[in-house]
């Protein structure tokens, strides 16, 4: 009944402005096709969030019907704002302003971050807190395929084309350090031009095994198992969207004591996953970063996942 009370009072809000943020990601830990409880198959993924990069949205409600977005090419974010107003049964439109530090076209999820920040900003402007599942559904409706960034650092297996959760792993990813960089000379990938990957039976069966690894890794906060899952998913991705230098990177990861290799399955990003609490981590990560640069990869950066104030 509290919700109904909020709905009743919306017309009299003092400040019809909402601001919100959404974080980026570094591609996926795993991505493939997964069975639900009925045995039917769904495309799904587990996003690897990085809180260091974000998109900020501001929504100023207005009485006019139009949603006007700045910068004006962010049409998906505008569509998301419109869908959110409709979902919340709010009349009128507004001005949507986005500011984002997330690079486009590499698999950082810049588009979904804009969309999710916009949905949250519209909801904030009418003083409603949306559930992550609703945000995820609206995001898919706005951009056809969306990652799981609506869930922030909460680990879920998300059906990116249906906007629903296949499995909720019930917690956050364990604290990780990620040495990230770009493959294929850092050339962006146009994700909308990519046909969906066709997986064979053995790959589909293997995805179930990778999902089990992620479930266990989240439940027991085990970076090693998470790394095993990511590496196997990256290897399958090599058969569908190959990245140059994959074997060399796998070897650097192995020698450097990384938990695994992770990729953006529809982007150019590569990441080496380390346990944040591993011994000598700074030295090892610096060494690995140097080897990756020498091997000719671009934009080598360190990202922290669920680091809770741990400083690099």
């Amino acid at each position, binding site marked *: 009944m509290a919700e109904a009370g909020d709905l009743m009072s919306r017309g009299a809000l003092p400040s019809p402005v909402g601001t919100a943020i959404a974080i980026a990601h570094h591609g996926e830990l795993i991505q493939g096709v997964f069975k639900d409880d009925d*045995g039917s198959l769904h495309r799904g993924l587990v996003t690897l969030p990085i809180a260091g990069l974000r998109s900020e949205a501001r929504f100023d409600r207005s009485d006019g019907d139009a949603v006007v977005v700045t910068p004006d090419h962010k049409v998906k974010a505008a569509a998301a704002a419109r869908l959110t107003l409709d979902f919340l049964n709010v009349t009128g439109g507004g001005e949507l302003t986005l500011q984002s530090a997330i690079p486009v076209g590499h698999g950082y999820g810049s588009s979904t971050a804009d969309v999710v920040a916009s949905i949250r900003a519209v909801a904030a402007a009418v003083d409603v807190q949306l559930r992550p599942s609703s945000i995820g559904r609206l995001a898919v409706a706005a951009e056809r395929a969306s990652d799981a960034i609506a869930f922030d650092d909460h680990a879920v297996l998300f059906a990116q084309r249906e906007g629903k959760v296949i499995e909720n792993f019930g917690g956050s990813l364990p604290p990780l350090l990620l040495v990230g960089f770009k493959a294929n000379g850092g050339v962006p990938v146009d994700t909308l031009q990519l046909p969906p990957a066709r997986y064979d*039976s*053995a790959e589909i*069966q293997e995805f179930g*095994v990778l999902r*089990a690894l992620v479930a*266990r890794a989240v439940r027991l906060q085990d970076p090693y*198992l998470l790394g*095993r899952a990511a*590496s196997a998913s990256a290897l399958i991705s090599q058969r569908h969207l190959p990245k140059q230098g994959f074997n060399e990177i796998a070897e650097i990861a192995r020698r450097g004591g990384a938990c695994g290799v992770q990729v953006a399955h529809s982007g150019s990003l590569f990441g080496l996953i380390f346990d944040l609490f591993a011994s000598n981590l700074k030295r090892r990560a610096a060494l690995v970063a140097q080897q990756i640069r020498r091997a000719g990869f671009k934009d080598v950066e360190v990202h922290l996942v669920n680091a809770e104030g741990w400083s690099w």
Partner: protein
Amino acid sequence: MVTLDVDYFRDLETPRLARLAPNLVAAAFPLMKLMPARFILDRAASNGELKAGSHIVETTSGTFGMAVALLAAARDYRLTLVTASTLIDAKYKARLERIGATVIALDDPRGDGNQPGRLERLQEILANEPDGFWTRQYDSPGNWLAYARLAELFIRAMGKVDCLVGCVGTGGSLCGTASFLRTVFPHLTVFAVDTHRSILFGQPVGKRMLRGLGNSVLPKNVRHELVDEIHWVGAYPAYRTAHRLLREHGLFMGPTSGAAALVAHWVATTLPDAQVAVIMPDEGHRHAETVYNDEWLSALPGWPCKEPSEPRTLTTIAPAAETQWTRFLWLRRSLDDVLKTREASDVPPAVGAAENL
């Protein structure tokens, strides 16, 4: 989280996971063959090979036949199982027939299971049935692919798995589980369990006392290159270990599960730092009047025998008595490679997968 499946068979095929030692987890199946049977039928139904009311055929008298029979009955398929008179007892035949299967038991004058005769009869049926479907558990990739689910269950329960122990008959369960576990744990050591005078790992064919593992023909689903060590367990130690599983763990399992548990306990003791998973394929009900019957046991020559506490390591593959337990370091080689090495009497050094862990 409790969820109800679309039908009961997914639950029925799911093993209970039992911790037998601090570093040993067993998957105790009520009827393991439901896992590949359901997978093969689901796949065939979805790609159109299996139509409503189709006639399913298979050459088996074992638990795969029972699994297909249960599924065929529930899903309204006709089923014919072709077996040999020496391989099936009247009670099991009656159980299969009660749930609607047609069981053809061919004569078996040589006492070797008459597989050529069974295949010939199966082909005759298929030739006369436009809607016939052969499940092909020996060769269908569906058999091994189904066991990704078992790999998932082990991982959710144990995390990292270092060693896998399981019986080999068609190769589906051990090779399937092993290949999925090894894609994520490349160091996985695989211990195959067979019985004396089964041809699967290079022994000469002969009369086998322990049923439900081993084979006198070689199925495609046996992938020797996945196997680090092969153990041949005789009937007697398998029976004794089955008794021990019931007494010490409350697990009422068939004798092949006893053979697997015997090897698994030894692996877990020998490698105390390794996490060991073992597959136990079926329950003891079918064996209540034999393996779990003192009268039947006491009529066995040499029963009771002393239970071996460790295997005898062979440097040359050879059969042994039903009281024996032997082992050979297979080292992920093909059958051809191992047989060639034997001819050249060029024996690999007696350090193997287990010692190297």
